[in-house]
């Protein structure tokens, strides 16, 4: 039985549909209920629904053999897992954004509000820019509006939230999309099953393209 961790929400549903088409259906998963574990013994699969940022934790610690997770989470937490496939789903960008009129004068440390302190630190470090990280857990766009930070580092999908709050993208840090990951030990002992899922996903997604 292959255990796959899926992120709750839109990306999880989309990824599940691809997995179902690839031969790993578990229709109960799309029903309106609060269950977290879904199993289809016939297809040899068990799904866990978890918080998107926890998918890599479940996989790295071997509670799940594989999972679907955003590249942003992989870059932020650097879990020791195999990153086997880019599903090209949930595409967005990790960006530095700030007030439309913002200009970095380089006269003091840049105050950066973010949910992704590791990505932000590495990015500005690569530019030798001294920063002060303000770690927030949500509504990041508010930070520069109320003077908590100069800029933010966050995920931008369409840019609507930024625009509605008078912010704009200043720089793109890295493009982000969903990845199929696997636990390293599971890959040794369930390698054939994992490759089978991978091949199914690839052919299902390439047909869609």
């Amino acid at each position, binding site marked *: 039985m292959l255990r796959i961790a899926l992120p709750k929400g839109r990306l999880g549903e989309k990824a599940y549909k691809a997995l179902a088409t690839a031969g790993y259906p578990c229709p109960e998963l799309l029903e309106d209920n609060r269950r977290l574990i879904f199993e289809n013994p016939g297809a040899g699969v068990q799904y866990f629904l978890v918080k998107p940022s926890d998918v890599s934790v479940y996989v790295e*610690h071997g509670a799940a053999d594989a999972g679907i997770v955003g590249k942003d989470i992989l870059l932020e937490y650097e879990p020791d897992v195999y*990153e086997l496939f880019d599903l090209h789903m949930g595409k967005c960008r990790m960006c530095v954004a700030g007030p439309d009129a913002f200009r970095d004068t380089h006269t003091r440390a840049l105050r950066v509000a973010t949910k992704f302190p590791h990505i932000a630190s590495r990015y500005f470090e690569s530019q030798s820019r001294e920063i002060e990280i303000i770690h927030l857990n949500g509504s990041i766009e508010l930070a520069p509006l109320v003077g908590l930070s100069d800029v933010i580092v966050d995920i931008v999908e369409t840019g609507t939230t930024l625009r509605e709050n008078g912010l704009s993208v200043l720089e793109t840090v890295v493009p982000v999309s969903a990845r199929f990951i696997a636990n*390293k*030990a*599971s890959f*040794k*002992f369930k390698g054939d099953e994992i490759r089978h899922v991978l091949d199914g996903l690839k052919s299902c997604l390439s047909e869609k393209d």
Partner: protein
Amino acid sequence: MSEITAGMRADEILSARLRALYGQYGYRIYKVNRFEAYELYVQNKNFLTDERVLTFTDLNGRLMALKPDITLSVVRNTRDEREPVRVCYSESAYRVPRGGDRFQEIMQTGIEYIGNCEPAALAEILLLAQKSLCIISDRYALDISHMGLVQELLRFARIEETDYPEVLEMIRRKDRHGMQDFTARQALPGQSCDLLDLMIILSGPVIPALERLSAFPLPESTLQIMRELEQIARLSQRVWSGTLNLDFSVLGDMQYYNGLTLSGFIDGIPSPVLIGGQYDPLLSRLGRQGQGIGFAVYLNQIDRCMPEMPEKAIQFVPPGSDPEAAFLEAERLRADGKTVILGEEETDKC
């Protein structure tokens, strides 16, 4: 694992069995001090999985560290011994595990071989690694790689040395799409792209895997390493039939490792339980000539793959009105192999 009933923990039993195995191959027990001068780790921080180290100031004012790693101490402290040095140890290391946020005491048992790393010596190391894993469980997998070979292949693929960290990280993660983006960005020739792609997906028995690599027009220096690797694998497999896989995601730091690298897995344990490699550059950094290789078996998570042992039945002998008779009776029962508590059995008062 019936010995567990004798009151030993699974990790203690396994550690004893591993040391007995290493003893059969001439490895003598080496006891290292729990502390080491902090400077050793500052100078070799890339050798550690995490550079944070628990430190304290000794009474003489010297900054000391609780050992985050055993190999560094063994290499440094066996400097004057006649080679080959064959030592095994069973020690605790204190470090922050990868992805962790606090220090842990990590129990490890391992070997260090410092001497000429000729094929027979390396085959013996592979054999010991496989036998070590087999002592823990027969559901094991041993992956090997070779840092020298990886370096040769990267050179053949025309990768600039400045790009090695990025490329090695992608190989380590089997990040095939990342590598495709990289090769496209660098406009590498088709042959380089194919080789890098193969380095990512290759994971299987050593000899067929090497055959797939030899489809590329590799230079003699690369083929020489591949022949050596094949010889080592064949030799160890003549006496041990377990699967030995070549997988380039098993990588060490190039500053410290230059040859064979090993990573062993046990079904049911999410991370490698055995890690090792040939570390000639480390010897050289510590002012020592020659070659050396070693591996450690991490016993912290071993209980995850062990069957739960039923609790041994305990017999109670109440002292009653004749404590002397009860004392003697309890001792008689213990002599029969029973577990006996001299006293009243506690009953649930609810």
